[in-house]
């Protein structure tokens, strides 16, 4: 009950809705970090995953990259990048992208590998070019799994971007870190609620994306 009271008083305080430390501003910053990191990670991970998955080569190398990237602690990496590179977007983006690439890369690869070979053969037999096989047959069938990889990447980015506030950056983590220093538990809980809500919204967005983008025939099998 206690926590609910804190949440209520945080959100009903008018001062929390205005200015550079207001909820809309912090939410926008958090969204910016998330979209940028997800965009970079997808731009790196998706093409490599699609290509290696299509040709079926390099799976072991991908698993190795994923394991070592996962072993890197995001929080430590962010602090390290901050002392090496100072203020700027790079210290935030590097750990977030390192965090997001393994799930995108490996899931895309595995999604392409797990496509039923019969329709792919049929497409080739019908005279489809390799790019058409990739984009019009394999990709639509592999899409649900690829989206699940993007989803876990996005959720991990949303939750880890919170930590950027510790090394002086913005985002929703500001409320948690500042609240902890100011011994203002109301602020801490309010910030935590916002981050959790954003993560759950991400989940919902990807669910909706799956409904929209995945062809009904493929969806029925999953």
């Amino acid at each position: 009950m206690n926590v609910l009271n804190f949440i209520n008083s945080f959100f009903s305080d008018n001062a929390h809705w205005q200015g550079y430390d207001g909820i809309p501003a912090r939410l926008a910053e958090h969204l910016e970090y998330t979209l940028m990191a997800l965009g970079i990670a997808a731009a790196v991970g998706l093409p490599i995953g699609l290509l290696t998955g299509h040709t079926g080569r390099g799976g072991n190398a991908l698993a190795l990259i994923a394991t070592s990237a996962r072993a890197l602690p995001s929080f430590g990496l962010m602090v390290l990048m901050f002392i090496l590179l100072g203020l700027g977007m790079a210290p935030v983006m590097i750990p977030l992208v390192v965090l997001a690439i393994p799930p995108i890369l490996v899931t895309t690869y595995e999604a392409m590998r797990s496509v039923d070979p019969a329709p792919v053969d049929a497409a080739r037999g019908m005279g489809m070019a390799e790019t058409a096989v990739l984009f019009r047959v394999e990709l639509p069938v592999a899409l649900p799994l690829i989206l699940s990889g993007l989803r876990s990447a996005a959720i991990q980015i949303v939750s880890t971007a919170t930590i950027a506030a510790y090394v002086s950056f913005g985002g929703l983590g500001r409320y948690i870190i500042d609240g902890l220093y100011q011994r203002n538990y109301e602020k801490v809980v309010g910030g935590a609620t916002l981050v959790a809500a954003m993560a759950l919204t991400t989940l919902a967005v990807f669910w909706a994306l799956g409904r929209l983008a995945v062809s009904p025939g493929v969806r029925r099998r999953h």
Partner: protein
Amino acid sequence: MSELFDLPSDLQNSYFGLVALHLREALIPVLAGLLVALPVAQLCVRVRWLYAPVLWVTTVLYAIPSLAFFVILIDYTGLSELTVMIPLAVYSLVVLVPAIVDGVRSVPQETLAAATAMGFGPVRRYVQVQLPIAAPAIIAGLRVASVSSVSLVSVGMLIGNEGALGNLLNSGLIYNQPRLIWLSVVGTAVLALLVDAALIGLRVLLTPWMPRATRKNPRPLAVKEAAR
């Protein structure tokens, strides 16, 4: 050599003391998660319709950011180790339940029938047939859970210096000692890789019946591993 690992005295610990603490804070939750996940997964295997809702709950729980989880718990468990370990246990549980369910479900029907025909009761069949065959899947889940657990313990630094090796990050910043930050990042990464290697070794030990190639790389599991 000793200078490299010297720490500020306010941490009240040696470097290797922090490493041990880090391992403890990371691995006890994984063990706790495993102990809860085994019966939950068995229930999901037995009662089929239960699996879909359980999967939904685990997905939602996993989406809760660690820092948010920590700070909400402060109100109940204070600034203590427990506040760090409870969320880590929940994340482990969430990774392990699907891994175990998939592993146990992958046991062929004939194998189960053969075990029953040999006079195995349900408990003995579970312990001596289903669990060993599911071992590679369970260990794949354990690998993901423990590596991410090792990485997440550092975040505990933010709630009253409960982050073991993560505490070095704060010391490094306030005393302007990049060496401490390197010690934290490299130490945590090496620890994660060692735990991962130990679990791979455990899998090789537990599954002497698997052919070398599949033992090294059980393909279908990689998707599950990566999706977390």
